[in-house]
Structures are given as C-alpha cells and as structure tokens.
C-alpha cells in the first residue's frame, strides 16, 4: 500500500456508541407521539382452517377503541417476494402467524381487551407440515395464490432454482469415492434483543405517511409498503430508529407493518405496534429449515470431482426473500473448493408452517454444513487427512469457478493453513481419548460474497457530502447502521482522507427523504459499498477544495495533503474551514458539497446463474476443539480458531466483534437452538424454551485475519459480517465426530441427541 494511513486499520471505538451506552439512543420501542394509539393484531388460533365468520362488534363498542380492521376494510395488494401473501386473511388461514384482525386503542390494555372480544369461527382443517407430504400428488393446494403448477409442475412449489456446470457423468466415472448423505437443518430464530416494532403517522393534510420502521432495506421497504397500500412510494417517508439487532430479519416487510399504516390511515392518528417476545418468536422471520440430499465424489488423488445436490426447503405458507437463499447456496456447492462438475436443484415447498426469511449467511450455514461434513466422510474413505484434502482442493487466486465467480484475490489456503497451524490440528486430531470426557477437533471452511451481491437491478450506494464553513463534515449515506459498525467505518474513512477529527463528523443515514438510494444492509456489503461510495464523493469534494486552495495560496493544483483540519501543500497550509468560507462567500459563490453513486464492478447473473456476482469474495476457515461428556451427551466448545480473508482490516476492534458475535451465533446453531413445532404450533416461543448461549458458554476465540488487499474494496477490504458463523456448525460436528466417532447429519447437537448416538452408535 502506497499511502501511509493514520486511522484506517487502527482500533476505533464505536462512533455512535456513547448514545447506546447511556440509554440515550432512541429505538422504535421508545418513540411516543402526541395522541398516539396502540395497535395490536389478532392472529389465528389454528395453523390451517377456513374462516367461517369474524365478529368485531364487541371490540368496536369497547371504550377507548379507535379502530378495528379486518380484510374487508382494507383495499390492499398482496405482499411478499411472490406476492402470495394477503396482509389480513379473510377466507383461510395457512399458518399460526396469520393475521385476522387488528385494533388501535388508546392504551395497550384496551387494545388487548379488544382483541379478546373479537369472535372468529373456524372450520379447522388438517394441515400439511412436512414439505415432502406437500409435494405428493394428492396434497391440497396450500397457498391459493401460488403459481407452482404453471411454473414448476407442482402446485405446492413456491420457488425453484436449478444450476449446473461441468460434465457430471464423466466426473462420476472418474470418482474413486462417492458419498451420499441426507442433512436436516433446523429452524432457528434471529432472537434480536429488540423485538419487531413500527410507528406509523399518516397525515390527511398531504396524504403522506411517515413510518418509523426498523428495516434493513429502507428503499425497497418504501416500495413494498407503497405496493401494499396502493400509494405513491415518494409519499412514504421511512425513518429508521436505532435498531435493536437485525441479522437479516428486517429484510422482508411483514404484514404488521402495512397493518399499522392502515390503522393510522383509518384513524388519522399515529399508531404504534410493538411485538412482545412470544409474538416475536411466532411472527417474525426464521432461518430456513431444509433437507439437503448431497452426493459428492473425489478421485484417486483425492481431488474433488463433482457435487450433486437436491434441496427441499420448507417455504412455509407464504413466500419471503428466504425462498431465494438457494442463490447463495449454489455458490457454495459450485465454488467452495475446486469443483469440476456441479448439479444443483433447490425447491421451496409450501407447508402450513410459518415462513422463513433472510438470516445472516442466507442459506450458506446450511449449505456449508452439508459440504464440509461430506468432505470429512470422503477423507475417511480415501484415507487422507481432513486437513490435507481441504488444502489440496482449496480455492486459489485467479480462479474463475464453474459459476464464473472470479477470485481476483483469495485467502482460502492461507486461512486453512493458519487455523491448522495455530490449533495444532494434526496433533490434536490424533489424540487418544479415554474416560468420561472425550475431546475432538474439527475443521471447516466457507466462501461468501465480500463485495455485495448483485441480486437487484443495482447493488449500489449513494453518498452526499456537505462540508460547512466551520469545518464540520456531514456524510449523508444511503447505507444503514444496525449495530455492526458501518457509521464508524465511514467516519474513519472521512477522517483519514480529509483530516477532519471525529468530533467534527456527522453521519446522517436514517431518513429516506434525506439520504440517497442504497439497496440495503445485507450480504455483508455495507462497509464495502458505502465505503467505496464515500471515497468517490471525497475524491470529488477534494477536487473542489484543491482548486480553491490553489487559487487562495497561489500554487499549482496538485495532490495536497489533508491533516488536522488543514490542507497542506509544500511549506504552505490553510485551514479547511477557511477554504470553505472562501468558496461560500467569495465569487463565484459555491457550496462545498459533492455526491457520488457507487455501483460495484459485479455482474447480474444470467439465466443459468453464471456470472461474477460480487465485487470480491471472502474466504474463511475455522478449527474448533470440543469436549464431549459421554455420560450426559453435553458438548462443550473449548477453543475456536478463526482465520478469515477480510481483504484488509479496517477497524480491528469492530472486526473482532463481528467475528466473536458470528462464531457464538454459529455455536448456538450447532448445539442449542431450535424452534420446535408440533403440527404447525411453536411449542417453545420464549427464551426459557429457546436456548441462546450465555456468557458462561463462551469458548476462547482466536482470530487471525488474512489480508489480501483486494483492489475492489475500500483500502483493499472485503465484507466480513456473515462469514464468521458459516463454518462454525460443521467444524463443531466434525470435532464431535473426531471425539466420539459418530457422524452427525443434523443440527442441533443437543445432549439428548449426542447421548442417544453414543448409546446406539447410530447416525442421526
């Protein structure tokens, strides 16, 4: 790197941290508007039923109730990725989340009481809760708006993806070892500490609707709300309050959001809906549960030959962004390690279960679990080390994969080598275990997009800069902060490039009326796209400043340096605010502003899903050591060694936080977390029954960043947010196999499951 950096790559405290640590940050739950009403939603009692009648008369008569709505009161469009989801259900209910009526009242107690007064008569039907049952010829059509029969030759298929490359038959014939396994992955909850919330305020004066909404994709959300309510998008203003955790859960607009808007439109007053924890479990998105049938091969030299995969996803009753997770999964099957041939089929199948959504990793934790487990099973048959087979087949710099992903930089092998070395993998893997506690070590790697993902028409981000005549910089960015630290990165970049101290930098990023367009915070893209966008705007504002400085100091315009609020050229220097004053107030009067729209150098993939979909790619490996209590089946994670190709470390403190948070989320996925459904009803909708890890469960986490300086990223960086949880569960399952010799093909590895496996020596 040519230029010496003074702020980038140095640990920097969270730019917006003081508000959060003092209770000053305003989350959606904290908003109170004058005359605000409280909204609540009546959901179905049964996951599958016809609605015979709905009687809201008693609720409407209750004092303090301002409004009760059902589907009959709402002139709205269907929502969801496939537009197959009515906001309020009138004739049938299809899953336990289904919204039947909503009330707005002066207090929460009155709203709750009003819900209890609404009488709904149901004709209860037998639901279908297993996607394989739903695929059967004689199954009823679950979602009546579904177009599965026309599009995919089965009435209950909501969405379907097919991808292939290479010569499958040739590669199969070349294979010395072929392993086929079925993997079953559980449904897990985002468990954001702040529950879902929205506050809506409709003005009859100008027909404008303001929503304080915890969305991750404000501009797509604005469009979705407009479609739902048949409004003009620009009449809708989205303000994002501080968001109490997201992890992908706030990608889809859910029915409660247009419902809240409708309540405000009907009453002319602000209305707020806050989920309680039980409602959060029942009625917010989840990770996809799926069955992955994977067959993989390797030749006599242990080189991978092919992957053939069939994925059956439980779509639930309606279709969300979650149905598009195969888009990410196919990258892992086609391009994680060198894969000469790949055939991929994924079907999202309607059932009477709740629908999943997007969740950190977007299908990749599931895909990687199956791929990395199969690699261990192949290595065993081939008689090669789990480390050696991975090193032999690792991705490399310059590789263009079968799917046309182009790895201009690639830290796959260095990451593997690092965790193998640091964890003393070879020694620990061969360690003999005796007695009650058995230790084991496992390896897994992952590939994920690192430079956005062009799944929408644009994967871009806009930035506007305003430098005022007191030397303060305001960054208007399209990107969104959800706690991950993107504001901090932007402030660091601005401080680095313009020499303006943090206390003179403001980041404005929460209002669609003000901020420029951005596709949203997802796909580990925010620091990458918003960082590049900001650098583009800084270049433009510097050109203006440089021109002014050369005029003021009578020097030739050149590459001036910016430090401590000064612009310096040779032995001359001038205060940056003075330059701005001269621009504003001297002739020809000019504002010191700039704007830039950054679009990543990536491709929209063709109909065969081929193309370089991201600006760059992140690679990571984890080696995890566990201890299994053979008396209780309890698995304890002892040490996690993480190495990740981050391109370049921008903020070591923030990066480490992403790694640790991701790894611990991955351990929960591996060991404790599962939403348990019985006939479409969630039986553990609370933190009593849904087990998140706590501080006493935390292993030692050792992190080794790999810097590959990718030219596409700001300062050479890549996206980091999702990667840390992706290889964790397979590394743990591989470690448990190493410890007790049982090969697990499903998650989570609960004590009951492990104990049963030890006793019966069976594979679960």
């Amino acid at each position, binding site marked *: 790197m040519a230029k010496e950096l003074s702020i980038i790559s140095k640990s920097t405290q969270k730019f917006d941290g003081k508000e959060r640590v003092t*209770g000053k940050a305003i989350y959606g739950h904290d908003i109170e508007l004058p005359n605000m009403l409280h909204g609540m939603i009546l959901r179905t009692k049964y996951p599958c039923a016809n609605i015979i009648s709905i009687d809201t008369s008693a609720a409407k008569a209750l004092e303090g109730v301002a409004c009760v709505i059902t589907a009959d009161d709402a002139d709205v469009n269907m929502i969801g990725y496939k537009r197959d989801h009515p906001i309020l259900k009138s004739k049938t209910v299809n899953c336990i989340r289904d919204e039947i009526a909503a009330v707005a009242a002066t207090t929460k107690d009155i709203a709750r009481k009003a819900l209890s007064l609404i009488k709904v008569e149901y004709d209860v039907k037998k639901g279908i809760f297993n996607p394989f049952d739903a695929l059967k010829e004689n199954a009823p059509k679950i979602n009546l708006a579904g177009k599965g029969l026309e599009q995919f030759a089965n009435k209950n298929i909501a969405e379907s993806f097919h991808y292939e490359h290479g010569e499958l038959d040739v590669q199969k014939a070349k294979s010395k070892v072929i392993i086929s396994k079925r993997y079953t992955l559980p449904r897990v909850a985002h468990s954001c500490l702040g529950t879902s919330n929205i506050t809506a305020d409709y003005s009859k004066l100008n027909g404008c609707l303001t929503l304080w909404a915890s969305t991750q994709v404000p501009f797509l959300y604005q469009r979705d709300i407009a479609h739902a309510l048949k409004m003009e998008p620009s009449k809708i203003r989205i303000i994002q309050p501080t968001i109490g*955790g997201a992890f992908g859960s706030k990608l889809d607009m859910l029915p409660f959001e247009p419902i809240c808007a409708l309540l405000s439109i009907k009453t002319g007053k602000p209305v707020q809906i806050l989920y309680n*924890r039980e409602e959060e479990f029942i009625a917010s998105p989840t990770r996809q549960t799926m069955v992955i049938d994977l067959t993989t091969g390797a030749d006599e030299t242990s080189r991978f030959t092919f992957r053939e995969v069939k994925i059956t996803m439980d779509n639930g009753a309606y279709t969300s962004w979650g149905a598009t997770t195969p888009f990410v999964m196919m990258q892992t099957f086609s391009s994680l390690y060198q894969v000469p041939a790949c055939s991929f089929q994924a079907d999202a199948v309607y059932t009477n279960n709740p629908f999943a959504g997007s969740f950190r990793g977007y299908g990749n934790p599931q895909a990687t679990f199956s791929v990395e487990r199969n690699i261990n099973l192949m290595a065993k048959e081939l008689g090669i080390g789990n480390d050696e087979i991975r090193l032999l087949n690792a991705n490399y710099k310059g590789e263009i994969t079968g799917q046309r992903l182009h790895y201009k930089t690639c830290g796959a092998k260095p990451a593997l080598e690092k965790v193998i070395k640091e964890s003393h993998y070879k020694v620990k893997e061969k360690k003999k275990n005796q007695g009650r506690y058995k230790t084991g070590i496992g390896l897994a790697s992952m590939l994920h997009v690192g430079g956005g993902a062009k799944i929408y028409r644009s994967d871009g981000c806009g930035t506007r800069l305003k430098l005022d005549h007191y030397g303060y910089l305001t960054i208007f960015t399209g990107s969104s902060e959800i*706690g991950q630290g993107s504001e901090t990165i932007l402030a660091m970049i601005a401080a680095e490039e313009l020499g303006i101290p943090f206390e003179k930098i403001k980041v404005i990023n929460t209002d669609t009326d003000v901020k420029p367009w951005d596709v949203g915070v997802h796909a580990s893209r925010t620091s990458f796209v918003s960082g590049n966008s900001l650098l583009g705007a800084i270049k433009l504002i510097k050109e203006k400043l440089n021109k002014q400085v050369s005029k003021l100091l009578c020097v030739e315009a050149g590459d001036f340096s910016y430090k401590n609020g000064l612009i310096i050229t040779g032995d001359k220097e001038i205060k940056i605010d003075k330059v701005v004053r001269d621009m504003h107030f001297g002739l020809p009067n000019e504002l010191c502003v700039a704007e830039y729209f950054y679009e990543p150098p990536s491709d929209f993939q063709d109909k065969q899903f081929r193309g370089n979909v991201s600006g760059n790619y992140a690679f990571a490996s984890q080696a995890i050591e566990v201890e299994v209590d053979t008396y209780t089946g309890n698995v304890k994670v002892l040490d996690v060694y993480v190495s990740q190709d981050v391109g370049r470390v921008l903020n070591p*403190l923030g990066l480490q936080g992403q790694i640790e948070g991701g790894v611990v989320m991955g351990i929960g996925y591996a060991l404790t977390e599962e939403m348990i459904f019985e006939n479409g009803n969630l039986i553990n909708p609370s933190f009593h029954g849904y087990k998140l890890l706590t501080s006493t469960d935390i292993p030692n986490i050792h992190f080794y960043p790999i810097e590959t300086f990718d030219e596409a990223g700001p300062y050479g960086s890549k996206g980091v947010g999702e990667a840390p949880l992706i290889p964790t569960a397979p590394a743990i399952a591989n470690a448990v196999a190493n410890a007790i010799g049982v090969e697990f093909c499903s998650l989570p590895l609960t004590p009951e499951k492990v104990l049963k496996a030890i006793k019966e020596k069976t594979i679960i």
Partner: protein
Amino acid sequence: MNSLIEITFTINGEKMVRKVKPSLLLINLIRDELKLKGTKPGCLEGECGACTVLVDGIAINSCMYLAVNVEGKSITTIEGLGTLEKPLNKVQEKMLEHGAVQCGFCTSGIVLSIKSFSDKCKAQGKVPTRNEVKKSLEGHLCRCTGYVKIINAAEAVYK
C-alpha cells in the same frame, strides 16, 4: 385490587411520590410513567436482562419486580449513572473501549449489572476471577457480540 397505592422512592437521586396500581411492573413505572426509556424491554419474562436496574444497589430485572415494592428504596437506571461533569462512568467507558456495544439493546442492563457486581466486589475488597465475571453476566442475553468483549470490559472495570 384496582385502588391506587402511594409509594415513596428515590430514582437516580431524586425523591418521588407516586400513586400506582398494585399490579404495575417496575419496568412500566420507569418507561411508561417516568419516561426513562433507557431501560429496555427485551422479553418481559426475566430471561434476557435487558431491563435490569439497580434497587438499593442490587441488579434486578425490572420486568419481574412490582413497582409497589420499591417503597422506601432507591432505584438507579442507566440515566442515573452519568453526571453533567462526567457523562460516562467507568463501566460505560470500558464498554466502549473494549468494543462491547453493537446494537446496544442489551447494553443498559449489562452496564448496571457490572456496576452492581463491581460495587459488591469493591466492598469485599476482592478482584473477581474471569469465571466469576462470566457468571455475574449469565443473566444477560446479547445476540450481537458473543459476550467476549463484554466480559473483557467487565474485567477491566474490576482491575
């Protein structure tokens, strides 16, 4: 049981007299009536610790505590930690220094727990072990950080 009961208590150093329903939860007194929104509602079932406040210096879940039981007691919420002269106390400073804050929804409760445990340790003249520190934070759920940095921040407070 709907008659109001008068309670006298101190909150963040200010003495207060209020009439409350016997069923009113402390979290609702704090958030809805006193408008101190820094105390966060995470689960309202005593599992997540986000609504932790101090009652006579001891960290409690305000969602599991009846408001009438603060009679004669002293409450500290997150808003009561800083002063005009020093807006951040040591716990808050260490949380920021160690990168222990991401989305921040769990942060208020954790800061108050650390404060309470730190005061207790100080009174006993002991420095807790890392395992004791972990144990002291067990009542708090955090989905963002993976706890490591929170534990590190807490340890730095006790040193």
